[in-house]
């Protein structure tokens, strides 16, 4: 078990003082003998229903409890998880036949079967925003015996398996009898089972002894999962500085998402804490209101694109050059969806050219309202630079800084904003994010060119051809400017040297990890 600060020799003085009054309380004495991980998270999860929200925090915790049919390995390739193998797809690309692994146990002691899968996927298509978009593609979803599932699509839809494999807003397979709205019980198949939630204190997961692991070697989220540590304690620590101090003090085995400025202190304490940098963790993006207001004009959006310098915005947002990459390709080099299409329009920062374009577009000096929040410092810092860049380009810009709850409400109202700033994780499949690639998301981007490019991408099941087709979508995004992908950023987290076997991932997981005694 980890030696927390209170059981170090140096604490003997304080402990002895308290012992005199019976106040002996090392952090872990209460659970002596049981291995546990103290994991400092950024806050309290809004829910534990992993289907109903794409919130990263919910996913990080509940991916230990629930599993999807498929997942992504270390190379971001699709691999089976609860499914026996990748599905058989009919020649017309419309029918997916999936066979479940045999002997997979649910946390309530019953064996998983196809009824659970079909019921769970139906719920996912009802409550999950991503599931809903998938449901529009699905004609039928039925069981074929106790282990078989058949999905028939209305037309070929290549992102189906990625949608089923995505960890956040997961198409989680749950025990049929536990399905409810809202969920009252959390019965899945994962290596850990839900034990207790005390809001603002912890979410406890305990090792599931009857877990049925895959045989393949572990790779990314795929392969063999083993619950080595007996208990996972996800502790909400909303104050980022407190997470840093807790990591430095050795109170946490893992501290999620630390401020970049903390890297120096972490690097200076090599025996106490190990920094974890996850490159291409996500991308900030600014969404344009294409439904109402000054940004409905595509030539004006193009002028804005010319005026801004994404590199400068990233520098303001992240400071340290190790934490951002200013590049216009939406997917990193070396990945199947890498494309340079349209990137000549990236990071132009050409005020003179922007003024000419704006004048040609008929821009009359209307105020551009930038909606942003200080929930994430980098959003706000980037918005400050954006406003200045727009002013330099001859635009009249106004910052509307609100709290996050207000932002998510106001962005749904097309009358209230022209640009808003947000960010997304960097996922292996284009259709997983941002939501503006789908229908109805704030920004309300809809155009024949979008429809055509996305339709071609979604109907092509050959991965090699899909890469090139994404390039065409990226070109349309640069041409129509419904949103601007500002660049890529890395994240900083930290772990204790005692935590072994941890591999950095977008959604950190703690199966296959152990604690050095």
């Amino acid at each position, binding site marked *: 078990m980890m030696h927390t*600060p*209170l059981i170090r020799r140096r604490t003997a003085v304080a402990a002895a003082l*308290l012992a005199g009054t019976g*106040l002996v*309380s090392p952090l872990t004495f209460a659970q002596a003998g049981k291995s546990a991980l103290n994991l400092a998270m950024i806050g309290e999860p809004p829910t534990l229903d992993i289907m*109903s929200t794409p919130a990263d925090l919910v996913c990080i915790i509940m991916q230990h409890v629930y599993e999807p049919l498929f997942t992504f390995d270390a190379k971001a390739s699709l691999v089976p998880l609860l499914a026996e193998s990748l599905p058989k797809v009919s020649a017309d690309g419309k029918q997916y036949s999936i066979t479940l692994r045999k002997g997979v146990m649910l946390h309530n002691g019953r064996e998983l079967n196809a009824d659970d899968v079909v019921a769970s996927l139906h719920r996912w298509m009802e409550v999950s925003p991503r599931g809903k978009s998938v449901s529009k593609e699905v004609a039928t979803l039925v069981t074929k015996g106790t282990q078989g599932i058949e999905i028939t699509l209305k037309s070929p839809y290549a992102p189906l398996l990625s949608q089923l494999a995505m960890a956040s807003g997961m198409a989680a397979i749950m025990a049929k009898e536990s399905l409810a709205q809202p969920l009252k019980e959390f019965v899945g198949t994962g290596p850990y089972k839900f034990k207790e939630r005390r809001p603002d204190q912890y979410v406890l997961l305990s090792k599931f002894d009857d877990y049925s692991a895959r045989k393949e070697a572990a790779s990314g989220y795929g392969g063999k999962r083993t619950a080595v540590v007996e208990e996972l304690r996800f502790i909400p620590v909303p104050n980022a500085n407190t997470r840093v*101090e807790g990591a430095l003090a050795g109170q946490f085995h893992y501290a999620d998402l630390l401020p970049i400025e903390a890297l120096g202190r972490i690097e200076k304490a090599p025996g106490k804490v190990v920094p974890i940098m996850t490159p291409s963790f996500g991308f900030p993006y600014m969404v344009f209101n294409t439904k109402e207001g000054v940004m409905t004009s595509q030539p004006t959006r193009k002028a804005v694109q010319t005026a801004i310098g994404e590199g400068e915005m990233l520098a303001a947002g992240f400071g340290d050059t190790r934490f951002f990459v200013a590049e216009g390709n939406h997917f990193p080099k070396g990945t199947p969806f890498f494309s340079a299409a349209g990137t000549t329009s990236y990071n132009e920062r050409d005020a003179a050219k922007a003024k000419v374009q704006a004048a040609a577009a008929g821009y009359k000096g209307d105020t551009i309202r930038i909606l942003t929040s200080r929930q994430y410092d980098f959003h706000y810092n980037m918005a400050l630079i954006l406003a200045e860049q727009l002013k330099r380009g001859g635009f009249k810009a106004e910052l509307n800084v609100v709290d996050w709850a207000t932002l998510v409400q106001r962005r749904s109202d097309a009358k209230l904003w022209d640009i808003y700033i947000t960010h997304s994780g960097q996922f292996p499949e284009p259709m997983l994010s941002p939501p503006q690639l789908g229908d109805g998301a704030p920004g309300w981007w809809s155009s024949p060119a979008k429809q055509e490019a996305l339709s071609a991408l979604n109907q092509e099941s050959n991965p090699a051809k899909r890469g090139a087709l994404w390039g065409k979508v990226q070109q349309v995004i640069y041409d129509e400017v419904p949103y601007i992908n500002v660049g890529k950023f890395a994240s900083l987290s930290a772990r204790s040297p005692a935590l072994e076997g941890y591999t950095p991932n977008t959604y950190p997981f703690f199966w296959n990890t152990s604690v050095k005694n």
Partner: protein
Amino acid sequence: MTRYPMTRYLLSRLMGMLVVMSLVAVLVFILTRAASGDPIAVLLGDQATAEDISRVQKLYGLDKPLPVQFGIWVNQLLHGNLGDSIFLQRPVTQALWERAEPTTLLALMAVAIAAGIGVPCGVVSAVFRGRMLDQLFTGLAMLGASVPSFWFGLVLMQLFAVGLAWFPVSGYGDPGATLLERMYFLVLPATVLGVLNSALIIRFTRASMLDVLGEDYVRTARAKGLSESVVVLKHALRNALVPIVTVLGLTVALMIGGAVVTETVFGLPGVGNLVVSAVLRRDYPVIQGALLVVAAIYVVINFLTDLLYTVVDPRVKY
């Protein structure tokens, strides 16, 4: 004179408390709903469409007109029910009850520390008025009143949790920890609150003692040849206690609802933390319920403090 003045006093105070609480309920509801933001949009996240949001709003009754929502809430209140949290999947009363312990313990420990520092320093300051000790304590009180609690918290954390590793950085004990073990996690946050709040106690004690030390009965006590310590501690301090008790009572009440920053910095699952996260997420039932309960505690502590005057100073009668 009335035959039962104390009973009359108690009844009139209780009626007053009811009126105050009714006004608080109305204000809390209006202010909570006047703020922009939508809990369901926060709950469902980035990919939710307007249809998703309105479907879930309906589930929680947030689609109904505000007067109807207010009526439902008041009806729940009259049945002793504060409603259910949108995010915590539990009744607000349960959520508050779970947080009552750390917050109450924190407030009591902090007030004990504040009184332990503030009263002696205030007494010494008054006795040695204008001298170096007085200036030292008055200066410290000024400093204490000026230091932000989050900064002081982080300093103590770095010194005693990270540097010396005597105390934990944050949290409220492991699952299954005993009460004493959980109290161990409160030492640093209580110290922050206690030290900072002692500034106020020092100033009040000093002022109150200075008033009393100039009274005739103190001069008489000295003339009787009583030792200075007996004069100060028995005759002067006891008579100076009424305003000090008032301040201590108010400090407890303030800490129960107002230790927000300290609870957030130290990751304590207290009422302050609950209110902050509820406000950020617009968890209406929790905001309304917590504010109402905190207001009730404040009113009750005020009432008890008034009653305590009769114990501290027998001259006070109602």
